[in-house]
C-alpha cells in the first residue's frame, strides 16, 4: 500500500522526477569530488611506473606508455629505501605498542579509579592541548642531547609514547565500562592491575584498536621531529629520507613518485583495514569534545 505525500499528489511524475534528478545530480557531484580527490594519488602511482622522463611530456600523460619497475628497482638498490622503510616500521610499531599500553593505563585511571584531584588534573591536561608542540621541540632536543639520545631511534620514538589526546580517547570510552563489573572483581579480591589487564582491556578493545591505528598513522607520517632528531641519513625514517631525496632528485619526477608510493601505501593500507575504527574514533571523540 503506497502512501503518496501531499507534495507529489499534484502531479504523479513531477515530484518523483525532480527527486530522481536531484539524486542523479547529487551522485554526479559525489563522483566528481571522488575523482578530484583521487587524481593526485592515481597520478602518483601511474607516474611511478613510467621510465625516467616519462612524466615530463606535453601534454602530461595520465597512463604510462611503457610501464616499468625501473624506478622501484633504483629505490631499493642504489638508494637503499628498504632501510628507511624498516626504520619507519621499527619506530612506528614500537611507538604504537607502547603508546597503547601507556595511554590505556592512564585513560582508565582517569575514567574509573578514584583519586584526589582527578578531575582537576584532567582539566589541566586538556588545556595543554592548545600548546603547539614546537614550543617544546628545541628544549626537548637539548634534553635528549644531554641524555645521549640524539640521532637514536629511542629519541625519535619518545614523543609518541604518551599523548594527551590518546588519554582522552581511552578515558572517553572507558567511562562506559560498567562499575558493577569492576566492583564485583574487587569484592572477589582481585588487584587493580589484574582487573585492568583481565577485565578492562578486553572490554575496551575497540578503542584500543582505534588508538593503535591513530598512533601508527601519526608515527609513520611524522616529519618534523625525526628531521630534527636524526642526523645520520642511514637512520632516517621514510618521510625524512623522501624529503632528502627530493632535494637531490628534483628532476627525477618518476623516481620521486615511486618513493612517495612506498611511503604512502602502508599508511593507506592501515587506514583501509581499520577505517571503521578511525571513523568511529573521530566521530565519537568530537561529539563530547
Amino acid at each position: 500500500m503506497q502512501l503518496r505525500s501531499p507534495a507529489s499528489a499534484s502531479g504523479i511524475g513531477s515530484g518523483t522526477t525532480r527527486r530522481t534528478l536531484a539524486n542523479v545530480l547529487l551522485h554526479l557531484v559525489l563522483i566528481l569530488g571522488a575523482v578530484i580527490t583521487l587524481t593526485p594519488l592515481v597520478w602518483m602511482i601511474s607516474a611511478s611506473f613510467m621510465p625516467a622522463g616519462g612524466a615530463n611530456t606535453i601534454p602530461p600523460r595520465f597512463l604510462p606508455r611503457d610501464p616499468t619497475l625501473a624506478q622501484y628497482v633504483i629505490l631499493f638498490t642504489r638508494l637503499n629505501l628498504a632501510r628507511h622503510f624498516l626504520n619507519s616500521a621499527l619506530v612506528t610499531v614500537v611507538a604504537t605498542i607502547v603508546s597503547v599500553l601507556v595511554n590505556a593505563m592512564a585513560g582508565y585511571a582517569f575514567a574509573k579509579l578514584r583519586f584526589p584531584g582527578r578531575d582537576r588534573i584532567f582539566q589541566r591536561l586538556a588545556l595543554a592541548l592548545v600548546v603547539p608542540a614546537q614550543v617544546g621541540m628545541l628544549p626537548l632536543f637539548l634534553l635528549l642531547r644531554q641524555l645521549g639520545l640524539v640521532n637514536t631511534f629511542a629519541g625519535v620514538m619518545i614523543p609518541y609514547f604518551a599523548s594527551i589526546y590518546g588519554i582522552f580517547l581511552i578515558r572517553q570510552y572507558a567511562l562506559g565500562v560498567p562499575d558493577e563489573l569492576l566492583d564485583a572483581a574487587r569484592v572477589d579480591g582481585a588487584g587493580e592491575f589484574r582487573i585492568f589487564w583481565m577485565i578492562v582491556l578486553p572490554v575496551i578493545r575497540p578503542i584500543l584498536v582505534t588508538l593503535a591505528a591513530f598512533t601508527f598513522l601519526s608515527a609513520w607520517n611524522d616529519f618534523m621531529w625525526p628531521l630534527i632528531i636524526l642526523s645520520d641519513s642511514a637512520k632516517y625514517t621514510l618521510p625524512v629520507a623522501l624529503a632528502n631525496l627530493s632535494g637531490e632528485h628534483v628532476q627525477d619526477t618518476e623516481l620521486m613518485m615511486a618513493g612517495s608510493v612506498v611511503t604512502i601505501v602502508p599508511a593507506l593500507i592501515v587506514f583501509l583495514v581499520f577505517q571503521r575504527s578511525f571513523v568511529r574514533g573521530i566521530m565519537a571523540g568530537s561529539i563530547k569534545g
Partner: protein
Amino acid sequence: MKTLPASRQARSAWLFLAPAGGLIGLFFFLPVTAGLLLSLTDFDIYAIAAPATARFVGLRNYLATLSNPMFWTAVKNTLYFVVVGGPLSVAVSLGAALLLNAPRVRLRSLFRTVYFAPVATTLVAVAIVWRYLYHPRYGLLNHVLGWFGIEPIEWLSDPQWAMPAIILLAVWKNFGYNMLIFLAGLQSISPELYEAAAIDGAGAWRRFRHVTLPGLAPVFLFVGVTTMIGYFQLFAEPYVMTQGGPFGSTRSIVLLMYEEGFRWWRMGVASTIAVLLLLITLAGALIQIRLQRRA
C-alpha cells in the same frame, strides 16, 4: 567501607598514571617550560658546546624578533594561510558531509573512504606529488586549467600564487577529517526538528539555515578552533615545496623557527618565536571563540 577501597584505588591510580605522567611530564611539560626560559637567553651554537657562555638577556630576543621584518612576514604568511585556508577547509568539509548525509546516497561508505583517504597519506609524500602537479609546463593542474582557456600559472615560483598553491594542497589533504566530524554532528541533529520545520512549510534552504546550522553550532566551534590551531603550525608544505620562497612568501612562523633554531642554531631566538606562536595561536583561538559565540 568507602575509605579502604578508595585509598587502594588512589595508590593504584598513581601507578597507572606513572608511565604516561612521567613521559608527558619529562618530555612535554618540562621542555615547554624550558622553552619559555630558553627564550630569555641567547643560547646558541657556542652554548651547545659550552653552556656557560649562554647569557640571560631578558626580553631582548622578544624585542629583536618583534622588530624583525622577517618575523612579521612570517606572521603575515601564516595568517594568510589560516584565514583563507581555514574557512575554505571547513566549508569543503561541511559540503562533503552534507552530500554524504543526503538521504538516498548509494555507496556512502565508499565515498566516505575516498574523501578521507588524503588524510591518511604522508604529508611529505603528497607535497612532493603536488609539487609536480604544480609544474608550470608538465603539471596536471595547468593542463586542466588549459581546458578552460586559462594561461599556465607558475604556481610555486610566483610569490602571488605560492601560498594559494599550498592552501589548495592543505584543503585537499585535510577536508576528510572535519567531514567526519560534521557527519557526526549532522547525524546527531534530531530528525523531528526537520520534520517540524517541513510541516511549517520551510523549504530546503530555510531548513538548512534554521535547523542544520544552529544544530551544528558546537561542531563549528570545535572544528573551527582545532583547524585554526593546526594551521598555525604550517611547516612541512613550505619546507618541502618552496623552502619558504619565492622571496619569502611562504615562510611560515614554524619554518622561521626551524631555520633560526636548527640551521643557525640560535635556540634562544627560536624559542622566542615558538612562544610568540603560542601567544598568537591562543589569541586566534580566543577571537574565534568569541566571534562564534556571538554568531
